[in-house]
């Protein structure tokens, strides 16, 4: 199997290199064929691995590929850990990536950067695979930053747009804030465990439970809490958790296929995956778990609210992604890692579907993204319409859809959790269900139903998108429906992840939830009588009432709740604050240090000042050497007089 493991990331890398370096030679078709073949092979092999590890239950693989470097007795290695967790992620990543590759043929059809785009998304697939397949912290960080790089390149893909190159810079820097914490977390791990390998670290984590670390002198903090929180800061960057969420909505400046692949299905879930992977560490610190659950709850609720006021179709989906990532984070904080991962997987399918469907709409609308100029698209684009409906239903957790099972799993788990903050989180995710349903169906109705608000020219050319676009939609719609029912039992209650995820017995909320579990039908029936279902239904109804029945109402509400609306439109002021305080502050500080410190003080006063002092002194000296005889004679006479005066005064004193 080793060569299979090796081939899985290398095939997309090869595709990326060929398409990137020889793009002009192989042409457009060549570029999409070589990358699709690479990712296709990778998907196929991931399926093989999935069958091998998950279905057949083979022993996990943990092995080194090569030694990156050795320093101070620490082996830094590149290696793979293929267990149930990574095998699942590999399949999700490669499958969604393959769909996006195919879809791109249609979406980027006319773009001059066609080959470059395929090269980037294949490179992304490689990076993401290296991240999830890693068996150590070093490679995790490699993959972590590499996906960040590709995300940067892709957000700025249309580099002549000022908004795009602003967004990609912002995304990279905000992610670096997260990586800053992440790197310090890794440093802490290395300091205390003397190893970068997951296996070694996890095996010794228990014995470090009571170790403390002094970040501030004489203040003892639990080592596990510090490591857990520092690593989670990295996850907050990559998985766009409050307050590092600010980059994700702007990342919509990138082409839609990558919004689906990177900014919904895979890269942004890296943080969730990472925390799940680190479960043996998080289980040892309730402080860290508490921190995680609170951050997740804030993100899940408040980011969902922002989705209500967006007018750009992609931004609605983006805020929805933020909110759903918050749900996953909440699950992690409640120690329901499996539920978080389950939602990650179902979300990957239905959110990729929603993004690609949005993209399909955007193609049909000639790259118009404003929902206020859409409406009534149902009859023009039936496949997009129906797949969007499937995606939206899955997103709001309609009973039977994949999202229903995974989201209900999270809500139930949080309900049972006793971690500080879980109470708050429960209400956040519960009310969040209503918000989710409201913004999802607001978008759905605005786009596909109601009056046709586009101009005549656009309307005349409206038609369903080509097969390369619709086939991926259909292929993603299938798992969006069925994955939940198939996998809820093993994943949430059957120990699907096996040894890959560790949950301390006292935190095992899923086991508590599982006690009442009576099978898929029972779970669904139970779902019909619980709050989330009715909240979702209420959300859809409200959306229907506001945007179908009484389309005049939203404007009225907007006027009434003027202040709230303003707060939401300004995204709680985070962007303005960051722009002013951090970006402006850094420039101001830099300017001050440069002009005051370097130019005025060091160069002006010390360096040039001493040069001037020497110059002045020698200037004075020079005047004494004028070369005129009478100057020298004058000086001699003065000198003689002074000497004489001295002698005379001595003589007088001596007298």
């Amino acid at each position, binding site marked *: 199997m080793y060569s299979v493991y090796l081939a899985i990331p290398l095939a997309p890398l090869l595709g990326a290199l060929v398409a990137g370096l020889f793009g002009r030679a192989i042409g457009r078709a060549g570029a999409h064929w070589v990358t699709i073949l690479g990712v296709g092979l990778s998907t196929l092999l991931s399926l093989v691995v999935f069958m091998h590890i998950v279905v057949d239950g083979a022993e996990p693989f943990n092995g080194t590929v090569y030694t990156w470097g050795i*320093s101070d*007795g620490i082996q830094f290695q590149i290696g793979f850990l293929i267990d149930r967790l990574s095998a699942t992620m590999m399949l999700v990543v490669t499958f969604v990536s393959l769909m996006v590759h195919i879809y791109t043929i249609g979406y980027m059809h006319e773009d001059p950067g066609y080959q470059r785009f395929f090269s980037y998304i294949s490179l992304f697939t490689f990076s993401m695979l290296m991240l999830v397949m890693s068996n150590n912290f070093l490679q995790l960080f*490699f993959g972590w*930053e*590499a996906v960040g790089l590709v995300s940067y390149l892709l957000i700025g893909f249309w580099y*002549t747009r000022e908004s795009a*190159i602003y967004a990609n810079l912002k995304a990279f820097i905000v992610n670096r804030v997260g990586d*800053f914490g992440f790197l310090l977390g890794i440093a802490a791990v290395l300091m205390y465990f003397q190893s970068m390998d997951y296996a070694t670290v996890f095996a010794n984590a228990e014995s470090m439970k009571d170790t403390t670390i002094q970040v501030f002198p004489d203040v003892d903090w639990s080592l596990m809490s510090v490591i857990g929180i520092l690593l989670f800061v990295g996850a907050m960057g990559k998985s766009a958790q409050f307050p590092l969420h600010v980059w994700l909505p702007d990342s919509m400046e990138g082409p839609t296929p990558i919004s689906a692949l990177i900014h919904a299905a895979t890269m942004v879930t890296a943080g969730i995956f990472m925390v799940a992977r680190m479960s043996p560490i998080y289980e040892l610190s309730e402080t860290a778990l508490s921190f995680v659950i609170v951050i997740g709850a804030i993100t899940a609720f408040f980011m969902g609210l922002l989705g209500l006021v967006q007018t750009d179709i992609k931004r609605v989906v983006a805020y929805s992604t933020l909110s759903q990532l918050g749900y996953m984070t909440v699950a992690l904080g409640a120690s329901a890692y499996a539920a978080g991962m389950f939602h990650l997987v179902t979300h990957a399918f239905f959110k990729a579907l929603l993004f690609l469907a949005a993209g399909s709409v955007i193609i049909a609308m000639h790259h118009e993204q404003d929902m206020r100029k859409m409406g009534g698209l149902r009859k023009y684009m039936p496949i997009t319409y129906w797949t969007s409906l499937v995606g939206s239903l899955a997103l709001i957790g309609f009973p039977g859809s994949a999202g229903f099972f995974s989201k209900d799993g999270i809500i139930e788990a949080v309900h049972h959790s006793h971690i500080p903050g879980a109470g708050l989180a429960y209400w956040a995710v519960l009310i969040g269900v209503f918000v989710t349903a409201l913004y999802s169906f607001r978008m759905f109705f605005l786009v596909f139903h109601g009056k046709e608000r586009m101009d005549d020219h656009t309307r005349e050319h409206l038609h369903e998108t080509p097969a390369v676009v619709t086939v991926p939609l259909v292929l993603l719609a299938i798992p969006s429906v069925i994955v939940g029912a198939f996998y809820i039992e093993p994943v949430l209650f059957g120990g699907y992840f096996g040894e890959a995820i560790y949950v301390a017995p006292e935190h095992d909320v899923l086991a508590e939830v599982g006690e009442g579990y009576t099978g898929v039908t029972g779970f669904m029936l139970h779902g019909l009588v619980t709050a989330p279902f009715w909240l979702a239904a209420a959300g859809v109804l409200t959306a229907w009432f506001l945007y179908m029945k009484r389309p005049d109402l939203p404007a009225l509400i907007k006027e009434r709740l003027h202040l709230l609306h303003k707060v939401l439109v300004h995204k709680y002021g985070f962007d303005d604050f960051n722009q002013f305080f951090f970006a402006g502050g850094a420039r101001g500080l*830099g300017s001050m*240090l440069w002009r005051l410190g370097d130019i005025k003080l060091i160069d002006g006063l010390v360096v040039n000042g001493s040069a001037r002092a020497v110059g002045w002194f020698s200037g004075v000296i020079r005047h004494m050497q004028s070369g005129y005889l009478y100057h020298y004679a004058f000086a001699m006479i003065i000198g003689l007089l002074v000497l004489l005066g001295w002698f005379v005064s001595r003589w007088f004193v001596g007298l």
Partner: protein
Amino acid sequence: MLPDPFPLLSLVVWTPILGGLWVLLAAGEKNAPTARAIALAISVATFLLSIPLYTQFDLSTHEMQFVERFEWIQTFGIYYHLGVDGISMPLILLTTFITPLVVISAWQVIQYKTAQYLAAFLIMEGLMNGVFAALDAILFYVFWEAMLVPMFLIIGIWGGPQRIYATIKFFLYTFLGSVFMLVALIYLYAQADSFAILDLHTVKVGMTAQILIFIAFLLAFAVKVPMWPVHTWLPDAHVEAPTGGSVILAAIMLKMGGYGFVRFSLPITPDASRELDWLMIALSLIAVVYIGFVALVQTDLKKLIAYSSISHMGFVTLGFFVAFSILEGTGSLQGAAMGMEGGMMQMISHGFISGALFLCVGVLYDRMHTRQIADYGGVVNSMPIFAAFMMLFVMANSGLPGTSGFVGEFMVILSSFKANFWFAFLAASILLLGAGYNLWMYKRVIYGKVANEGVASLKDINARELLILGTLAAVVLLFGVWPAPILEVMHPSVENLLQHVVQSKL
């Protein structure tokens, strides 16, 4: 029959020096093509000659290798004494690797006194190799000072409009520092009755003397690194220097300072180093953070990269001097070697990356004759291949994993975490600041709409530029994904140095 021992180091030192003289004599004023051909041949030959230093290197020992020793000035016991260990050998290879690239980069650009220009670089290459290979303090000092002359000429003759101010600043700064070093060396000679650097490592020196010697060395090396606050000569020198001068300055000359610390300061004055390590760490962290902010607001491309260099060199000195805090804090030296190796890795990698970035600026400057960021914008539209290379180097300069820029910074951060959380915290701020100044610059220069006529008419890089940037890109990536070949060379010497440094000399 080859002489035994084969004088490999002498060849690496003298081939370029004599080759430089040959270029002057053979090509003269008029015959630029001959000058280029000879210079290229000599620099490539020197590189090839230096390769056995790596391939024949004995990884199992910290002892000096390829040693040559002849009496030079008998009265004072001064020897012509060369040798390398795992600390100096990679730096020599860096020098011999960069110089041919510099020669190629001058191919069309330098039309004025071509032969003299190339000769200056070749002679400087030999002298720099001499600095790294010298095992006799006076020999070291001779190479060290001699090296200033060609660089002085390069900036003074082929430099920009403010070149006279810059050269004088450069020369005075570095010369002033070195004079104190000479005094310290003479004092040490009086104690040890030898100028052999390895003898100076073992000679006993009292605490007061150690402190004074340490400060004398510090003045010499801190200027070269350069450390805050004696760094202001560097941005001026870079801005005025021709591209090749900037490349050599950033890629190799700055490393002299770092090398001095590990070859002189730490082993000769270990107790003073331990006593004053707080000062070194403080200055290093100031360099990383303060200069990082300053780099952010630069409007001149070369100044930006110059400030970025200072900030990155902060990691070198931090890695070198963090060992004592680790020993104090954790009671063991575990982790200290990682800091030192990280610091040295940072020197090598910065050689590639800063060299590449200055070459990139050179590519732009040759076409547009301006270094102002504001004069650019949208370069990617007319120079996509160049933009891709620049992206790689800018990312490497931001310490992206997978590039060599990551390796040293990563190791130093890991190591300094063991000493103190806040050291690592401040050092890691380069993740943010580095990304900030690098990518913001990239955004303004490369991305965006075509800013003006000049940018619109830019031609993408030619084969010669492709060769240079491609070569550097290859090593940046190679040592990013596989730094082991460099790390394993350093390891025995670093271990030995650490063992030596923690033993008191009092």
